[in-house]
């Protein structure tokens, strides 16, 4: 397809680009091994500081609670949402009403995160002033994170369900499974890769986010990204910040690779499920 000369040229351009993509991250890692003041060479000094930094650990704990807590909830809401829209929506429905669910689902995806964050800031403020509930803090951050994750989970689950042979549902029904049993023994196992994928996506989105967290945070709800941002704004980049960055980058890359190789094995069965339908 691609002539050999062009192929060489593409490699010649692309490998350096790949390198460039990782250079900033590599520099973060490199500088994280900076020595302690008045020492030379490389050391784990910054990591040692981290180990004894209570603020970092509580920020990490909050980040994890935020990511996992929001991802679990959004996985539940999003799975049901994707399932419902795929299975129970009147096919080919026309009119404005029929488009409302799609509009609702796409809004969080399209809305710039800044607008998202500020809207939540004002809304939580209003609710808090009126009722005393939902004061800015980890709680509001979790709510906001759930909100932007739900559509992604729903889309993932929906895409998986839409790709399945629709007669599978009839078949389960035919083989004495009622609605609940079909959901438990057919739909959940079939959609499980998508549910796990949606959950992972939720975690990733949560960890990636700064803007929305920033605007919905409150007293004592500093998460890792907010901590890093604050530290950079205050003191510039320090080896300690680089050490946190390195650990975050490393963890994400490792998890992504593990997930990639696991799902690659499992997907072979999944592809059959999608191909099984005729007509």
């Amino acid at each position: 397809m691609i002539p050999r000369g062009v192929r060489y040229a593409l490699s010649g351009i692309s490998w350096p680009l790949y390198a460039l993509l990782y250079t900033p991250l590599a520099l973060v890692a490199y500088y994280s091994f900076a020595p302690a003041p008045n020492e030379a060479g490389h050391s784990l000094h910054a990591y040692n500081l981290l180990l004894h930094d209570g603020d970092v650990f509580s920020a990490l704990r909050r980040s994890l609670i935020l990511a996992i807590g929001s991802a679990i909830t959004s996985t539940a809401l999003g799975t049901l949402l994707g399932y419902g829209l795929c299975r129970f929506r009147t096919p080919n429905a026309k009119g404005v009403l029929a488009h409302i669910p799609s509009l609702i689902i796409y809004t969080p995806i399209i809305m710039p995160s800044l607008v998202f964050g500020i809207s939540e800031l004002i809304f939580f403020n209003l609710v808090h002033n009126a009722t005393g509930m939902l004061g800015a803090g980890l709680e509001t951050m979790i709510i906001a994170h759930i909100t932007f994750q739900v559509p992604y989970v729903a889309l993932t689950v929906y895409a998986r369900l839409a790709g399945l042979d629709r007669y599978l549902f009839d078949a389960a029904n035919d083989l004495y499974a009622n609605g609940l049993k079909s959901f438990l023994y057919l739909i959940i196992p079939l959609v499980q890769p998508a549910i796990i994928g949606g959950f992972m996506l939720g975690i990733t989105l949560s960890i990636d986010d700064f803007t929305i967290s920033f605007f919905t945070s409150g007293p004592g709800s500093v998460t890792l990204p907010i901590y890093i941002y604050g530290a950079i704004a205050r003191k510039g980049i320090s080896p300690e910040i680089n050490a946190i960055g390195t650990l975050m980058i490393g963890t994400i890359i490792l998890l992504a690779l593990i997930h990639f190789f696991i799902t690659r094995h499992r997907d072979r069965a999944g592809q059959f499920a999608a191909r099984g339908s005729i007509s």
Partner: protein
Amino acid sequence: MSGALKTEQEIEAGRQRLRLWVTSGPGLVWIMLFLLIPSAVLLGIAFFSSDDYGAPVLPLSVQPFQQVAGYSLLGWDPGNITIFLRSLGQAGTATLVSAALSYPLVFFILSQREDLRPLLLLFIVLPSWTNQVVRTYAWLELLGPNAPVSWAAHLLHAVPPDLGLAPGSFAVTTGLAYNYLPYMIVPLYASAEKLDWTLVEAGRDLYASGLRLFWHAVFPQTLPGLLSGVIFVAIPAFGDYVVPQLLGGDKALMIGSLIANQFTETPDWPYGAALTIIMLVFTGMGLVGFRILTRKLGGAEEVTI
């Protein structure tokens, strides 16, 4: 007879609607409650006056929009128009850069063995899974004062000593392009993967140079993917907050920071809300414009609910 017939269908349709609401209701209500209503409130604030301390008060007023247009207590000032054009320019440049980088990368991946491709694609997407703040500040290490790249730039007399390439506009554009590159690559890859190579083979006889062959036989086929990519990159880049904040050094404000300032540093909520409306209107116009263009050009396939 027809009465019975109608009820049977109605009962079934009702049951279906109930199932729909039981399953998808919670998610939809959640999004409505925690995003649609809040953003409606935000947008509503734009039509209030602001008190001396920037809080929204009655009466309703168009003053926030006059402020957006540049009219303040100081008279007319082109500052906002500058910020607006600057944001468009930065986002546009970042989009161009990421598109220019995406083509060789996408065709490079396609020229590799089929089982290697997902992995190569993964390595492009991976940096975007680390945190926004981390991958953005990482560029400070590369472009900041005393960093190797800045040093080289200084030797070329591009920047004054000790100042570096970051913070500044160059760093912001670079950061935006880096952050949103995967959003360009993924749709472009999806459309390049379905490329009809017979057309390219046919074109090989017609066009003398490889560049013309690319332009006439390959490029039109990847256009749907490119357009999706442009939407996915340009829209978030236009309203981005973290990148200009960390890499811009407040030297050249972008619209995102301007809006955020109205809620953080120098509060003026109605003004900030009015700015938000203008930003969303432009974003929406861009979105609709590109969708129309995409549809005219044959359209890219997406998963749609």
